[in-house]
C-alpha cells in the first residue's frame, strides 16, 4: 500500500468526501420516501449510500482480518436476504423488530469490543468513554426489547402483558440505575471488564422489563421507539469512533423514529410515557377479569345475506384489521371489491392509523393486492362518511372500531380515536370467533342491533361472499 494511488485512497480527506457523498445519498433517499412514486428509488438511493460508506470504511492501510470480514458479510447476507425475501407481508412487523434488534445488538457489542481494546478507555479522552457507554446501554436495551417484541408478535410468548406486579417499577429503576452506575464508573476510572459486562446485562434486563409488560396494542409504538433508540445508539457510537457517516445516519434515524413514535402515540390518544409505563397492561387484565357479563345477543349471518346487502348498497366501506392480515385475505377482498364496483357500488377502505400491528400495515397489504391508492382513506377523511355508508364491512378489525373508546371512560382504550362504523346503516363483522381483540377487551359493536356477524376465517368468508355475488 505504498503506491500514490493507494495512499490517495486511504487519505483521511478522501474518505471524508466519500462519507459526505454517502450521507447526502441517505438524506436524498429518505426524502424520496415521502411519496409512493419516488419511494422505491429513494430506498435504493439510500442503499447505494450505504455501499459507498462501507467501501470508504474498508479503505485502510494494513488491512486486517480480511477473511473474517468476508465470512461475516457472506454469512450475514446469507441469513438476511432469505429472511427478508421469504417473510410474509403479514409478518413484516416482527421482521422489522428483529432487524432492529440485531442492529442494537451490534452497537452494544462494538462498545464492548472498544472497551476491551482500550483497557477500559484508560488512555482515551473521557468523552469517548461517555459516548461508548451510552451506545452500550441503549444498544443492549434495544436488542433485548426488540427480541421480546418479536417474540410477542410471532406469538412465541403471549401477547398479554407480563409484569412483576408491584415490583415492576422498582425493578426497572434498579436495573436502569445499575446500568447507569456502571457506566459512570467506567467513565470516571478504568474498570475491570466485569463492570462492562454487568452494564450490558443490567441494560438487557431493563430492556426485557420494559417491553414484557406492554400489551399487543401498543407494540407498534414500542417497535418505533426501539428503532429510534438504535439510531441514537449508532450516532453515539459514531462520535466515539469518530465516524461521521455513523453520526449522521444514526441521528437521522433517531430523529425520524422519535417523530414516528410520537405520531403513533397521538393516533392512539396515548402518551409515550404511558405506553412505556405499561399502564395499559394492568387495566386490561382488570377489565377482562371483571367481565361485563350481560352484553346482549349477537346476530350471526350467512355469506349469501352479506352478498345481497352489499350488492344493493350504494357505498360499502371496508375496515381491514389484523384478522385480514393473518388470513392473507387482501387478494380475496380486492376480488370482491372489483365485483361490487362492476355492480356500481362505491367501495372505500377505512384505514385506522394503528390497524394491524404497525402504522401503514394495512396499506402495505392492500397495496400488495393492487387496491387503488385513492380508495384508501385515512381515519379523519372517512369518519364523516360513515353516516352516508350503507354497509361497513369489518374484516378482522376489532379495537379500532370499539365504541367504548368514545363512550366508556373506564375502558382502557377510552379516548383513542376510532372508526365510527356504528354510524353506518348496517355493519357486517367478519371474525373468526367471539374472542376479544388484541388489547383483550370486549367490543360492544358486536352486540349492536345493526351488526351482523359472519364467523369464520376472513379469507374463506370473503371468498364465499364473492361466490354469492357472482351468483346474483
Amino acid at each position, binding site marked *: 500500500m505504498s503506491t500514490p494511488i493507494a495512499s490517495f485512497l486511504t487519505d483521511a480527506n478522501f474518505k471524508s468526501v466519500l462519507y459526505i457523498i454517502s450521507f447526502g445519498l441517505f438524506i436524498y433517499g429518505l426524502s424520496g*420516501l*415521502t411519496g*409512493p*412514486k419516488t*419511494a*422505491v428509488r429513494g*430506498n435504493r438511493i*439510500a*442503499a447505494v449510500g*450505504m455501499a459507498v460508506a462501507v467501501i470508504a*470504511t474498508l479503505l*485502510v492501510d494494513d488491512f*486486517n482480518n480480511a477473511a*473474517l*470480514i468476508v*465470512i461475516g458479510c457472506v454469512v*450475514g447476507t446469507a441469513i*438476511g*436476504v432469505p*429472511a427478508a425475501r421469504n417473510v410474509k407481508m403479514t409478518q*413484516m412487523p416482527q421482521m*422489522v423488530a428483529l*432487524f432492529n434488534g*440485531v*442492529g442494537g445488538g*451490534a*452497537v452494544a*457489542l462494538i462498545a464492548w*469490543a472498544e472497551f*476491551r*481494546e482500550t483497557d477500559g478507555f484508560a488512555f482515551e479522552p*473521557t*468523552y*469517548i468513554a*461517555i459516548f461508548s457507554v451510552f451506545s452500550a446501554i441503549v444498544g443492549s436495551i434495544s436488542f433485548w426489547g426488540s427480541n421480546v417484541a418479536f417474540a410477542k408478535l410471532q406469538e412465541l410468548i403471549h401477547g398479554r402483558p407480563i409484569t412483576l406486579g408491584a415490583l415492576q417499577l422498582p425493578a426497572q429503576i434498579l436495573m436502569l440505575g445499575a446500568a447507569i452506575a456502571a457506566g459512570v464508573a467506567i*467513565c*470516571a476510572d478504568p474498570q475491570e471488564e466485569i463492570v462492562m459486562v454487568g452494564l450490558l446485562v443490567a441494560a438487557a434486563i431493563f430492556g426485557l422489563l420494559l417491553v414484557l409488560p406492554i400489551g399487543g396494542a401498543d407494540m407498534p409504538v414500542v417497535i*418505533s421507539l426501539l*428503532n429510534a433508540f438504535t439510531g441514537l445508539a*449508532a450516532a453515539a*457510537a459514531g*462520535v466515539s*469512533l469518530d*465516524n461521521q457517516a*455513523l453520526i449522521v*445516519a444514526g*441521528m*437521522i*434515524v*433517531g*430523529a*425520524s*423514529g422519535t*417523530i*414516528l413514535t410520537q405520531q403513533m402515540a397521538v393516533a392512539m390518544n396515548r402518551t409515550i410515557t404511558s405506553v412505556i409505563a405499561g399502564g395499559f397492561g394492568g387495566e386490561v387484565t382488570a377489565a377482562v377479569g371483571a367481565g361485563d357479563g350481560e352484553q346482549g345477543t349477537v346476530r350471526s349471518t350467512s355469506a349469501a345475506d352479506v352478498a345481497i346487502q352489499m350488492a344493493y348498497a350504494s357505498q360499502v366501506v371496508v375496515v381491514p384489521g389484523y384478522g385480514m392480515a393473518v388470513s392473507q385475505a387482501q387478494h380475496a377482498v380486492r376480488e370482491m371489491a372489483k365485483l361490487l364496483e362492476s355492480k356500481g357500488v362505491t367501495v372505500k377502505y377505512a384505514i385506522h392509523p394503528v390497524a394491524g400491528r*404497525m*402504522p*401503514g400495515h394495512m396499506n402495505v397489504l392492500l397495496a400488495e393486492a*393492487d387496491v*387503488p391508492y385513492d380508495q384508501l382513506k385515512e381515519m379523519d377523511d372517512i369518519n364523516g362518511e360513515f353516516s352516508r355508508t350503507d354497509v361497513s364491512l369489518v374484516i378482522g378489525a376489532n379495537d379500532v372500531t370499539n365504541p367504548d373508546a368514545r363512550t366508556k371512560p373506564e375502558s382502557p382504550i377510552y379516548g383513542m380515536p376510532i372508526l365510527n362504523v356504528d354510524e353506518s346503516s348496517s355493519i357486517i363483522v367478519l371474525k373468526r370467533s367471539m374472542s376479544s381483540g388484541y388489547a383483550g377487551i370486549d367490543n360492544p359493536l358486536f352486540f349492536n342491533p345493526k351488526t351482523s356477524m359472519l364467523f369464520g376465517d376472513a379469507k374463506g368468508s370473503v371468498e364465499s361472499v364473492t361466490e354469492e355475488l357472482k351468483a346474483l
Partner: protein
Amino acid sequence: MTTLTTLLASTAESPQASNLVTNLAILVLSGFVGYAVISKVPNTLHTPLMSGTNAIHGIVVLGGLLLLATGEDLGTGTTVILFVALLFGVINVIGGFVVTDRMLEMFKQKPKEQIEAGSEQ
C-alpha cells in the same frame, strides 16, 4: 468533578478536541435534518419508512468493519465479539433494505392500477 475537569482538559488539548466539537455539530444538525425530511412522510408510508430507517441504522456495520479492519492482534474474545457485531450489522443492513424494497415495490404498481381503474369507469 474530576471527571468533568478531565473531560474539559482532554477536549482542550488533545488533537481529538476539534473532532469532538465538529462531531457534536454534525450530530445536532443531522437531528434537525432528519426531523425536516421525515416529518413530511404521509401516514400510508409509515411502515416502509420505519423499515427503511431501520435499514439505515444498520450503518453500525461500519463500526464492526472499522474495528476489525484496523485492529491488529485483537484477542480471540474481542475478535469473536466483533465478528458477531459484524454479522448482526450485515443482517440489519441487507435484510432491512431488501424488506423495504419488497414493501415499496407494491406501492410502485399503484399508479398503473389507478389509471386502469379510472378507465374502467
